[in-house]
């Protein structure tokens, strides 16, 4: 039958469903950047985690306890993916003190969340889906921290059932979860700015200060990251944790993971971090000169600039760097009267 002859009477009302069409026609529904953990501008190898450590872009790792662990970009991934974020305990902590924690937060910029209509009676349900694998089975939690206006915390348990097996988890987050009205009231609003709108966290170990939450409920206590049922992932040096395929979307259904091109994911990541941009200039006239270093995309804010390696400069003193004279699109280097000026730089505008 030629397609031109199909009309609405030819299609049963229930023939077209969300899962059937979203992977084909609805793009940019994933609110998570680098959810497949492909982009790792800082490197791919194992690094020890401190209090805010990145390896793959956009996913941060925190640790404040008596043990230690590393993170790396791993090639261990479920079918359809090639990379994951791996954590590996290197020094165990079998007794997490009250105020101690290990978690992996992902910060979503507030500008990207305005269509959720948080802070109104029309606030939308969202669904988080992801793949996890660990040798340590049991109950884990994710949390959603909303900072703007009045701060609220949502937590939800999930279970890793089988040792060393990739499992897909789906968590639906209603704005009224737990019969609360925090998010649908004015205090639930997310400011339309470039700050943190929501912080989604994968919680691996939390002390009792942070385990007062109730699964599938919003709380006005912003320490309620997790619940008392959650495992202590730090309790053995055998423990690992893999995460990939992270997707957050509007609605109550987890659709297939939206695979964007690597180039698109990289550009999206560069709004927050640009690795190793190089620039140079030759000063033939021996006069004071300034080099403008263009960034590949407009960054979230004026970035912090870190020089990597030596300045390529004939100046007696190291040239100055001015990070806020490019309107988030560039920065300046002052070279004085040196004959040659340049270098490699990192630009950081992370949340």
């Amino acid at each position: 039958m030629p397609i031109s002859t199909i009309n609405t009477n030819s299609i049963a009302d229930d023939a077209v469903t969300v899962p059937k069409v979203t992977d084909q026609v609805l793009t940019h529904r994933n609110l998570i950047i680098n959810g497949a953990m492909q982009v790792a501008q800082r490197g791919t190898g194992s690094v020890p985690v401190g209090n805010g450590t990145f390896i793959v872009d956009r996913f941060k790792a925190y640790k404040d306890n008596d043990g230690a662990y590393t993170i790396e970009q791993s090639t261990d991934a479920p079918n359809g993916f090639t990379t994951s974020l791996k954590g590996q305990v290197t020094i165990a902590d079998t007794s997490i003190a009250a105020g101690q924690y290990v978690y992996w937060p992902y910060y979503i910029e507030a500008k990207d969340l305005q269509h959720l209509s948080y802070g109104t009676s029309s606030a939308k349900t969202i669904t988080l889906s992801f793949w996890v694998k660990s040798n340590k089975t049991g109950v884990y939690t994710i949390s959603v921290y909303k900072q703007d206006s009045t701060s609220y915390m949502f937590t939800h348990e999930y279970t890793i059932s089988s040792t060393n097996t990739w499992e897909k988890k789906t968590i639906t987050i209603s704005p009224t979860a737990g019969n609360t009205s925090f998010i649908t009231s004015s205090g639930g609003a997310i400011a339309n700015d470039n700050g943190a709108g929501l912080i989604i966290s994968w919680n691996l170990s939390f002390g009792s200060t942070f385990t007062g939450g109730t699964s599938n409920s919003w709380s006005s206590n912003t320490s309620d990251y997790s619940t008392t049922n959650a495992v202590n992932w730090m309790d053995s040096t055998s423990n690992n944790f893999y995460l990939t395929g992270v997707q957050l979307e509007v609605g109550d259904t987890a659709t297939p993971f939206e695979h964007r091109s690597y180039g698109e994911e990289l550009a999206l990541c560069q709004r927050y971090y640009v690795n190793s941009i190089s620039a140079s200039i030759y000063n033939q006239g021996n006069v004071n000169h300034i080099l403008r270093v263009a960034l590949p995309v407009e960054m979230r804010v004026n970035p912090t600039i870190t020089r990597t390696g030596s300045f390529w400069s004939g100046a007696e003193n190291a040239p100055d760097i001015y990070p806020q004279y490019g309107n988030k699109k560039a920065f300046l280097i002052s070279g004085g009267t040196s004959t040659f000026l340049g270098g490699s730089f990192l630009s950081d505008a992370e949340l």
Partner: protein
Amino acid sequence: MENMNITSAQYVTFNESNSGIKATIDGVEMHVPLDPANRHYTEILRQVDAGTLTIEDAE
């Protein structure tokens, strides 16, 4: 729960006004813009308010 270890901070001038802060954060020299949405600048101000950090004048 960010907790940066900032061991030094000094203003840098451009056209005779403060244009940024050269700071040592977690052992690395960084050039921080005076942008209230920049996380490093926010943390510098927090530590100044807490009395644990002083921003030196520009040279």
